[in-house]
């Protein structure tokens, strides 16, 4: 079936639903690389107009990625909650936008709707939204998860402390970890991207992180971001695994490129739950996503990269994760060319994931081959914080020396706390105060208690490399 819009007497035709979605997407290099982007600015708006008139029900009847050959499509359609969808089943995409913006649509309405929404519906409505729409609606969503602390409460912004080291040196990791704690960073997770994916390294890293956590009595969770199969092996060896990590994408074929499928994720989820390490909750999974991952694996089926990204959230929500984040500026300029495209994508990813009920964070970041810089990251951090982003990632001085890209600096977290008043998770906030790093209002002390630092430094000095 084809779709149409008439603009100033010119009739625009879009051959099928995936073409309509691709042409309606705000401009980005990845869709141009895939050869599916609108050819002109007017064609893009014409597609947005046709999309706005489309009944939401259409997405339940048309496959973008064939149901028979894709387990993500089956997960989306078989898991769709008709009762939850009933609230909006009569709406077009355009009317759905207005329903979401309506002040009478409450936080609890949005939470109740989430299981009735498909990723394609969320992606579609985002394509006819401005940045402020993406922000104001995401800010209305509330998604709370818990493990050793509580993530996602109103007025809060959590942070992943990412103490990577190029050779996974234990003391190097611990030094960056301590530096981050002194900035009050790390309540979402203390998570290391390993330089290798050997099981020995994985076990050493999670053991190191767990030792630091226990010695300093930190109410937070740790994670080694190795492959999910490595995590399963480590769990079988008795390693102290808090969260199991995996990169995920929006089609079965793209996930196969990551060496995973839904059944191995389920196996990992069960293995992590079996350790029963969470004290205040049982959300044990951590996922990363990013626009362009399906296209880079030639597994996008002619669907635009933002819709494919939203489909990854269906995979994520199946496993009730503690944390999900898009690595928005990481994947490269062939998918998101510059600061403007990265900013737009970051807001879209956060919006769609929140609407679908996920604890969505963002790695506010860029690479050295993209047309972007620290000013773009300041802007995106500010916008995402206004949108109520669940967490952001931070590294020493914004420089990730292992993955060779720029994330946020620990300082940037202080900036957003000061400017927008966002606080960290309550359990972690109490710990910072008790430890002597912050004052009664949660502000970082200029001169923290020596007792708060000395023992940690001694611990690191005594470690083996």
């Amino acid at each position, binding site marked *: 079936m084809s779709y149409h819009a008439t603009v100033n007497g010119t009739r625009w035709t879009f051959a099928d639903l995936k073409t309509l979605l691709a042409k309606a997407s705000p401009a980005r290099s990845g869709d141009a690389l895939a050869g599916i982007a609108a050819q002109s600015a007017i064609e893009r708006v014409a597609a947005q107009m046709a999309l706005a008139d489309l009944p939401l029900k259409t997405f339940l009847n048309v496959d973008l990625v064939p149901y028979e050959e894709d387990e993500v499509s089956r997960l989306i359609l078989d898991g769709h909650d008709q009762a939850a969808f009933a609230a909006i089943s009569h709406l077009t995409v355009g009317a759905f936008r207005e329903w979401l913006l309506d002040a009478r649509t409450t936080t609890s309405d949005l939470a109740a709707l989430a299981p009735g929404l498909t990723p394609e519906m969320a992606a579609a409505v985002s394509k006819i939204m401005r940045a402020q729409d993406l922000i104001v609606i995401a800010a209305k969503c509330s998604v709370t998860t818990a493990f050793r602390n509580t993530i996602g409460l109103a007025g809060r912004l959590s942070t992943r402390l990412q103490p990577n080291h*190029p050779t996974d040196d234990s003391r190097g990791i*611990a*030094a960056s970890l301590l530096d981050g704690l*002194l900035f009050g960073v790390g309540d979402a997770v203390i998570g290391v991207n390993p330089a*290798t994916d050997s099981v020995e390294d994985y076990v050493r890293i999670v053991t190191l992180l767990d030792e630091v956590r226990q010695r300093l009595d930190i109410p937070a969770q740790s994670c080694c971001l190795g492959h999910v199969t*490595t995590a399963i092996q480590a769990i079988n060896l008795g390693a102290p695994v808090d969260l199991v990590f995996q990169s995920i994408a929006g089609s079965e074929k793209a996930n196969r490129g990551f*060496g995973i499928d839904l059944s191995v994720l389920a196996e990992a989820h069960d293995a992590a739950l079996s350790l029963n390490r969470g004290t205040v909750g049982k959300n044990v999974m951590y996922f990363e996503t990013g626009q362009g991952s399906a296209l880079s694996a030639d597994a996008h089926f002619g669907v635009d990269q933002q819709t494919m990204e939203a489909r990854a959230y269906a995979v994520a929500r199946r496993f009730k994760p503690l944390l999900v984040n898009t*690595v928005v500026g990481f994947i490269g300029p062939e998918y998101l060319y510059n600061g403007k495209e990265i900013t737009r994508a970051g807001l879209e990813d956060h919006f769609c994931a929140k609407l679908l009920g996920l604890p969505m964070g963002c790695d506010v970041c860029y690479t050295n081959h993209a047309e972007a810089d620290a000013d773009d990251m300041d802007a995106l951090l500010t916008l995402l914080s206004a949108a109520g982003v669940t967490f952001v990632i931070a590294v020493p001085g914004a420089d990730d020396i292992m993955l060779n*890209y720029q994330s946020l600096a620990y*300082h940037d977290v202080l900036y957003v706390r000061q400017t927008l008043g966002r606080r960290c998770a309550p359990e972690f906030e109490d710990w910072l105060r008790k430890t002597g790093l912050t004052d009664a209002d949660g502000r970082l002390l200029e001169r923290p208690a020596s007792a708060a630092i000395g023992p940690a430094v001694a611990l690191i000095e005594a470690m083996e490399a």
Partner: protein
Amino acid sequence: MMPDRPPDESGQLAVASHLAPLRRFTPARIGLGRAGSGQLTATNLQFMLDHARARDAVHAALDFETLGQLLREQGWRVARVHSAASDRSEYLRRPDLGRRLSASGRAVVEGATRGDDIAIVAADGLSALAVETNLLPVLDCLRPLLVARGRTIGPLVVVEQGRVAIGDEIGQLLGARLTVVLIGERPGLSAADSLGAYITWRPMIGTMDSSRNCISNIRPAGLSPGEAAAQIIDIIEQAFAYGATGVRLNDLRSTAPGLRTIANAP
């Protein structure tokens, strides 16, 4: 690289003095001090300089004439080719073109000797500096290890504007059982000279990234040429033993085929 100046005269001095001894454990930018919530002026400007340096490194061109000459002097048979990406700007926007040979490049490889065990490919990737700095030392360490194990090596194919997967087309044309692609990794702020090694069993066009093993961060301040060569040969020997690389080679050194790994591949 880090300024030695103490952050300020208040309590931040105490924090910095605690962290100073830990700097020997990591090149990360720890113990920077702060001005309110922001960075100090000196560290802020240092960061901007490092970014400027990395930006310039991405756009620097590799001197293929000199490189080819040096390799021939070391006894390598060298085949110089170009990818289908015409220049750096197209290379950055069109990774698909960087993964395939140009028509003339394909003709060069088709004319080369076929049927050796291993094809070694060297590509500029995203850092000419990485290839200039690390390629010869790694090859010097790797060649005797391969020879000692009786593996035959095809011509060394040197690629301009190449990405990792161009090794698949080259390996397939050469009829190699395995390729080793040595390629400049994306410059970071602290390291613009990092080389990556991607090892692929039975290379052919369309091979998925999860079917490769990767050893990254080969550079003077990271993984040494000797260590890198030892890890490469280890994976090669396992690949020959099990007939696979990547996730199928479920060994203890296989790389995580995650988003970060794949996006990082030049």
